[in-house]
């Protein structure tokens, strides 16, 4: 099963072998992307599952001319951003409640990537904290470029934007990270 169009056609027919192939090919990349975005192992696992459920159920509407993996990445990024928005809103509401002493605001613990060695933990904590502070679009572009190694064209396709816009987002993301990490 090498030709992507073939795989999409099989997927659209509900072929489980094609789905298993897609899952095995992209699960690690999608899991890692989501992990960088949401910075929580459990949530990344849950969202990765959700992404593949959506891939299987909505592949009928997928345009064969587009690239499959950019579509899967787009679903993953959207789900991760939605979860983050929800978490931020919840945190804001929690802070509001804590002002009135109704409920204490929950502190989000620093994220430690499961793949990081013990001696690098401190450095990685500050790096992930800085990445988490970036605005949504900058964070997405940065994760896809620096951590997922996607090309500018691919990032533009995933984010449904132009290449100059991706370049600008990455430039600003780097500037902001340097500022946060000083």
């Amino acid at each position: 099963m090498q030709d992507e169009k073939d795989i999409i056609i099989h997927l659209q027919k509900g072929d489980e072998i094609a789905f298993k192939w897609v899952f095995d090919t992209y699960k690690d990349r999608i899991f890692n992307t989501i992990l960088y975005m949401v910075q929580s192992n459990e949530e990344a696992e849950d969202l990765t599952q959700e992404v593949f459920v959506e891939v299987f159920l909505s592949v009928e509407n997928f345009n064969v001319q587009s690239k499959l993996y950019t579509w899967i990445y787009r679903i993953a990024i959207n789900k991760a951003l939605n979860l983050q928005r929800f978490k931020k809103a919840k945190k804001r509401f929690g802070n509001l409640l804590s002002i009135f002493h109704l409920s204490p605001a929950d502190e989000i613990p620093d994220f430690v990537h499961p793949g990081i060695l013990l001696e690098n933990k401190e450095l990685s904590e500050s790096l992930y904290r800085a990445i988490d502070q970036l605005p949504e679009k900058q964070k997405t572009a940065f994760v896809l470029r620096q951590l997922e190694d996607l090309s500018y064209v691919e990032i533009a396709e995933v984010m449904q934007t132009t290449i100059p816009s991706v370049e600008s987002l990455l430039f600003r993301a780097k500037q902001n990270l340097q500022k946060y990490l000083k």
Partner: protein
Amino acid sequence: MDNFGNKKLVQHRINAPEGMYYQVRERIVKERMRMARTRQQLAIGSALLLIIGGVNIGIILFSKSEKPHKTNNSTEQILYETYFDNQTPFLK
């Protein structure tokens, strides 16, 4: 770390947890069942609405309004004639 343009960040990659595929399959089955149930509920709801609407229209079309008995009281007689004799033929 201070020059992202030239240096690549260390990519900390881990594998997705084992057994995830079976959890995904389970979720797909559950999601399909939920979608089927929603479709079924929609179909039942639409059918019920159609039946209720049909019954209501039937009642309106086939019901005959009952006229009160004529009385010898002149005031009532005038009211009766003013009201019922000016109605549309549908209500007569």
